[in-house]
Each structure stands twice: as structure tokens, then as C-alpha cells.
């Protein structure tokens, strides 16, 4: 594999990881009540507020933004590895870049399903 192909393969793989990470980060529950920052306060207060899940607006939208950006990142990974296959296509390069492109496409499809499904 030539340097450029190795670089693009590694970078595209990193992007797929970033996409997964961003999506997960968006799903994090950042309830002010459950926040570690409020651990001390929580102990002192008798009645907790009515719970708001991560599906409530606008938190749901924060998660959606993360998923949206993750989606763009996954598409970017697929595009980069596909473009690189056009430029460099020795068998090993095709194999590696193709595998990564497929992974990126799978991630794209999954993220799209989540993104479209969460439309308010």
C-alpha cells in the first residue's frame, strides 16, 4: 500500500470511530439533577424535580445534533475511502479501503435510521 492510501484508510477508520463516539456522546444523559456536579446538592435536597428523560425537548435535539454530525462524519469516511480507491487500486488497497468504505456505509445507514427516526 502506498502512503496516501494508508493515510486515507487510517483516517477514514478514525472518522468512523469519531462518528460512533459523537453519536454516543449525544445519547449521554446530562440531566442537571444526575450531574456529578450536583452530588453534594442531591444529598441535601429532599424532593427531586420531576425527571426529564433524554427524549424531552430540547435535550432530544442536542442528541439529534450529535447524531447529525456523526452522520456527516460517516458519509465523509465513506466518500474519502471511495475517492482513494479511484486514485490507488492495487489489490491490497482495494481490499483495505473497500472494507473501510463498507464499514462507513454501514455506519451511515444506521445513523441515518436513527436520525430520521428521531424527527420531532
Amino acid at each position, binding site marked *: 500500500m502506498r502512503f496516501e492510501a494508508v493515510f486515507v484508510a487510517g483516517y477514514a477508520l478514525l472518522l468512523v470511530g469519531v462518528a460512533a463516539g459523537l453519536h454516543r456522546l449525544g445519547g449521554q444523559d446530562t440531566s*442537571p439533577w444526575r450531574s456529578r*456536579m450536583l452530588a453534594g*446538592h442531591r444529598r441535601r*435536597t429532599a424532593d427531586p424535580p420531576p425527571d*426529564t428523560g433524554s427524549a*424531552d425537548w430540547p*435535550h432530544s435535539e442536542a442528541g439529534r445534533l450529535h447524531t447529525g*454530525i456523526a452522520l*456527516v462524519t460517516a458519509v465523509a469516511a465513506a466518500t*474519502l475511502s471511495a475517492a482513494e480507491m479511484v486514485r490507488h487500486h492495487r489489490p491490497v488497497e482495494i481490499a483495505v479501503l473497500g472494507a473501510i468504505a463498507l464499514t462507513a456505509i454501514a455506519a451511515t445507514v444506521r445513523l441515518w435510521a436513527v436520525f430520521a427516526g428521531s424527527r420531532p
Partner: protein
Amino acid sequence: MDSSAVTTPRRRDRLIGRGWIQAAALVILFGFFVLVLMGYQTYQSGPPIPERTVTPSGQTVYTRADVKAGQGVFLKNGLMEYGSIFGHGAYLGPDFTADYLHRSAELVNKTYGGTGSGSAAQRTIDDYRVNKYDARTRTLTISDAQAEAFTTMTAYYARFFASPQGKTGLRPKAITDPTQIRQLTGYFAWSAWAAAAQRPGEKYSYTNNWPSEPLVGNKPTADTVLWSAVSLIALLGGTGALFAAFGRWNWLGWHGRDRQELRFREPGSVGLTPSQRTTAWFFFAVVGLFLLQTIVGAASQHYRADLGSFFGIPLDRWLPYNLVRTWHVQLALFWVATSFLAAGIFLVPMITRRRDPKWQAGLAYALLGALVVVVVGSMLGELAGMRGAFGELWSWLGMQGFEYLDLGRLWQILLTIGMAFWVVLLWRGLRHKLATESRANLPWLFFFAALALPVVYATGLLARHDSSFTVTDFWRFMVVHLWVEDFLELFTTVMVAYIFVLLGVVREHIALRVVFLDIVLYSAGGVIGTAHHWYFNGEPASVLALGAFFSAFEVIPLTFLTIEAWTFIRLGARQESKSAAAFPHRWAVMFLVAVGFWNFLGAGVFGFLINLPVVSYFEMGTSLTANHGHAAMMGVYGMLAVGFAMFALRYLVPARRWSDRAAAVSFWSLNAGLAWMVFVTLLPLGLLQLYRSADVGYFDARSLSFVSDSTNTVFEWLRLPGDVVFIVGGIGPLLWLAWLGVRHRGRHAAPLGAGPPASAETPAPAGAVEHGSTGAAAPVEQELVLFTEVVPPAEGVRPAD
């Protein structure tokens, strides 16, 4: 109460503990004390500019006057917006310090016998590293080989800048005057000398051995490595300590017993004052400038993808890279600042709930007119200045040339006056409110944060084109870092906090604590952290150490306040569900959510990625800087400016014309386009360039041949779809909404003071729980209707504190 209201209005009590104020004051004092010390260091320890640089036999090669004139030539021709000096400037052209250093060292090496000779390498290193500057006679002696290289390099730059066919991104025949070329070469030669000659008594150069250049023995210093490690530890330790502290003490005091009810009013039922209605034109200007900024940005981007021509058109004749790049960075500041000014004007009547003072709307229009004059005047000045107009007055009217302070001094002064005039407008509007408020409460903080904007921006006037570069860079970063990264950020925090308070979704005392926390965190990290721009521009190692250590703390508020921002919004979510009328600011809040995201990614992650001295050493001036710059500037300030526009336009455009769909398309296109730009082009290119710089050398990583090689070109072209989405899908709908704003300008809104028949179903809001204190103190005038009605809990439970 009635009698005191007539004589002297009693000030409302402070809503924040004394400890917060003392902490903020202490940290601010400490931060600025260290900043002043570093300023003193800058004047004391910068590299000297020798009166004469001579050969061993006493022949003059170049003089102090040449170097200073050379800096002038460099600036007025916009070369800092083409390439860089000491690593500071634009990223297409070479870094002229590294360029001169590498090329001349190669020539010297060849004179001494080249690679075939064993001693040539060492003799070259000695020529550059041994500091032969005599402080007594203020004379620098260089070797004959170096003097010979100077002559060759002068001829080289004469060819480079006078190139008739362009192909460099500069205007064809940009600089042809032989005197100017010699002065320019003198300037580059001096900077290269400072980059390699050892500081008296030290083993490293004036620039802490920057740039990396094996030919002259330049490699990262021990300080560079050590303080990088310390910086990492500071980041981890600082974050841990802060989170631990927040777990222990409930500083911000969120509480769950808040039972008050919010009823959002239909935007159309909120009356607007004439000054608020002027902002329709402001926001139209904002979007127009934004569009222009992206178009010139696309043009400058095109040079990176194809240096030769713009689809067959010789763009470089009239719109060379350095001109479009200048406009691109200037317009970024202009449109964002215009949005902030407009948001301030829009917010004042909502804060005071009073009618405008006399002439307020007229003055606001005058301000907008003045802004247009400054924007158009400065941009034309830059165009004409780069083409040699204005003679002696070039730095006043034309291209002053410091990256981000490109506009001529006249325009710079007018812009400062404009901002001061804006503060006067705010003062006129806020006067009565301020008289009844403690100076530590939100209205005053809003005013102080606004007042700081012209004051800090004015420090940029101390960057003079004829000062030593190290000194000019000190003042330049007072604007680029301190003004943009700290004081705009502070003003932003106050504005956003205030909007949340006015919307009723956050308690005023909680918002105050967030603002004070912001002041403490930014004064600790951000003020001293300004030094993270001064690692390698001629400042001593102590400044590098301070910058590395304290700027690590700057990342903490970026990520931390993001988490706080979520909780801010969450508090709103809970109460929103109680309101019958839909929350009208869905998309304005969405843009704030985006601000939080990009603050974390663009400013926090991408910023810290290049903040460690040892990374910065190889990275400076590469695409990784552009990566951070775009993700942070557009992601944070750009999204915020658009969010402000969305907020105000929601009132200026009648509901039946308003399109949530346009807002949605704009929101997703801007975010997707920005993410594409960052992940497809800027980040991978930056990583490649960083690798090249550490592997082969900085000179090579910044050379035109590397920047425009085929790998880079592919990444540059792949960016196109994202840019199209950003411009067409992102700005198009925005332009439409802004146009609707101008067309309707809130004329449909309810008449002032009358208010909607809100009392039909609920008791009148007569001075909403926390922010309506004037309601009791000044009953003379009927209050303006606010967009949210806060209904206190039925049992009359006092809000917990």
C-alpha cells in the same frame, strides 16, 4: 416606597454572594498583572534589530532602516495574508522566516563544500547559531557566505514577487521595485537570523529554536517539551479539581423546587420599540456580509485547490489570494460583531421594559450607516492599498496588513468609535434600570461587558507597522486572542444568560453565578493564556512556559460551560412543558445547542490539539490551525450570531410569514457544511502537513509545492459539496428570513404598552417575579410586554435561594 421612588430610587440588592465578587476581582487582577509583566518582557527581550548588518570586512549588507521598511513592504502588500512571518499569518504562501532560513542555509552549505564536505554542515550551523550581534555598537556581523546568500536570495525574491504569470496566488508582478525587494529580503533575513542565533547566555534561539530546521540545528528546546508535559498535567488536574469542587459544593445552586409557571406569549403580541425595529436592517446586513464572507472564502479556497486559474478566469489579477483572504477574515469579524451589536440594541428594551429614549432609533440607524462606511471603506482601502495606492498614508487608509487587523488605522479608529457609540446607545436605554440595580447584578454586568468591547479592541491600535515584530504581535493578540476569545466570550455569556432569564427559563441568580464563574475561569486561563500565541515569535522561554501552563485552563471553561449550557437548556425544558403557547424560539435555542457542541469540539478539542508548545512548534501555520479557526470561529461565534438573528427575527417577521422550515434547513446545512469542511479537508490536511513538518521539515511542509501536490489537491476538491451545502442551504434561507425581517420590521406587532389581553385568563404580570423590579419603583410608565409571563406559584412560595 412611593416617596422613595420619586426622589432617589433605591438600588436592588445584590443577587450574588460577596465571595464570587472577591474571587472574580482577585483572579482578574492576577491575570492582568501577569499580562502586564509579559508586556514588559516583550519590550525587553525581543530580538534586537541591528543598526547595521555587516560582513567580516565591514561591508554593509542591510540596515535597521531596511528591516523596518521591509516590514512595511510586507504588510502593505498583504503578504501576511498570503504567507507568514515567524509562523504568523496566512497558510497558502511560505513562512518567509523558514523560507529564508532554509534557502540561505542551503546556499551557505554549498559555499562550504556541500554535502560532500564533512565540515560544511557544522560550519553552516556555526554561522547561524553563534550570535555575533554586538549590543554596544549595535552591529551584527555575518559570514561572507551568508552575505553572498543574501544577494542570491534578493534575486530569488525579485523573481518570486515580480513573476508576470502569477501562479503563486499573488497578483502578477505584485512587487517589482528593486529597493522594496531588497528591504523585504532584509526583513526576512533578519527574522531568519533571530530564528537561529542563540540568545545571549542561552543555548536556544530568540524564537525558542523555531522553526525546525536541521541545516541550522533548530530543534525543539527542553522548555518546549517540558512545558508541554506540564500543560497536559494542568489540563487533567484542573478539570478534575473543578469537577470535584462542583461535586462537593453546590456553587451554582440548581434547585428542583421551582414551581413557577411560564406562559410564552405569541411573538406577534409583543410590541417592539422603534430601536428594536431598526435591527431588522442590522440583521439583513449581517446575513449579507456572511454571504460575502463565504464567497470570498470559497475564492481563497479555490487557490488551494488550483493555483493556476479560476475555471479559466485569471482571478489573481484583481482578486489575488491575499486580498480575498484578507476580506474573508475581516468580514468574519464584521458580520459577527454586527450581529452582537444588533442583539444588544434589541435586548435593551426587553431588559428595561421601557420605551426608547428620544432619538434612539435614529441613532441606531446612524450606527448602522457608520458600520457600512467602515466595512466598505476598509475593504476598498485594502484593495487599493495592496495595489500601491495612498503613498505615505498606506497604513492609515489602505492595508495595515496585520492578520485580523488588516484594516487601515483610520478604519480601525472609526470602528472603535462606532463600538463606543453603541455603548452610549445601550447606556441611554439602560440608564433608568441601572440606577436601580446593584452593580453586581445582570444589567450592570451586561453594560460592563459591552463597555469592555471597544476598550479592549482599541488596544490593537498600539500595533504599529514600524515597531519590532515581537511588539506588534503582542498588541495584535490583544485583539485576536483577548478580545475575541475572552471579551466576546464574556459578552456572549452575559447575553445568552440574560436572554434565558428574560425568557423566564433560568433564575437570575443562577445566571449570575454562571457569568461570574465564566469571569473567574476565563481570567485565569484566557488572559495569561494569550501567551499561547507567543511561543515562537521572539518572546523569551518564560512567556512560553506561562502560555502553555495557563492556556490549558482555557480549555476547561470551554468544555465545562458547555455542560452547564446543557443544564441551562434543560431547566427550560421542564418549564416549557407547562406553557400553553408553544415556545417560540425553538431554532434560536437550537443554534445555542450548536454553539455548545462546537465550543466543545472546535474550541476545546481542536484548540487543545494545537495548544501544546511541542505540537505548535511543528504545526504553526498549517491547516490544523485553520481547522481550529473555522470550527471555533464559525462554530461558536458564527452560530451564535445566527442564533441572535433568529431570536430577533422571530419578532420582526409576522407569524404567518415566518418559516420554521427555512430555519431548519439553514440550521442543518450550516452544521453539516461546517462538519464536512472540517472532517473532509481541514483536519486530514492538517494531520498530513503536521506529519510532513515533523518528518521532513517545516520549510517543506509550508512550501507551495507541498501545499499544492496531488494528495492535497484531492482533499481540497472533495470539500466542494460541503461548501455548496453551507452557502446555498445554510445562508440562502437565512437571507430569505432576514429579507422578510426588513420587509415587515415588526409593523404587525401589537402596539407598545398595550399588550395582549393576557389578563383574560391570568393575573397581569405586573413586574414578573425577578426581573420586573422597576414595576414597583416607577409606576409612572406602563411597562412593555415581555415575551414570557412568569406566574408565581399559587402558595406564594418564595423562590429558593
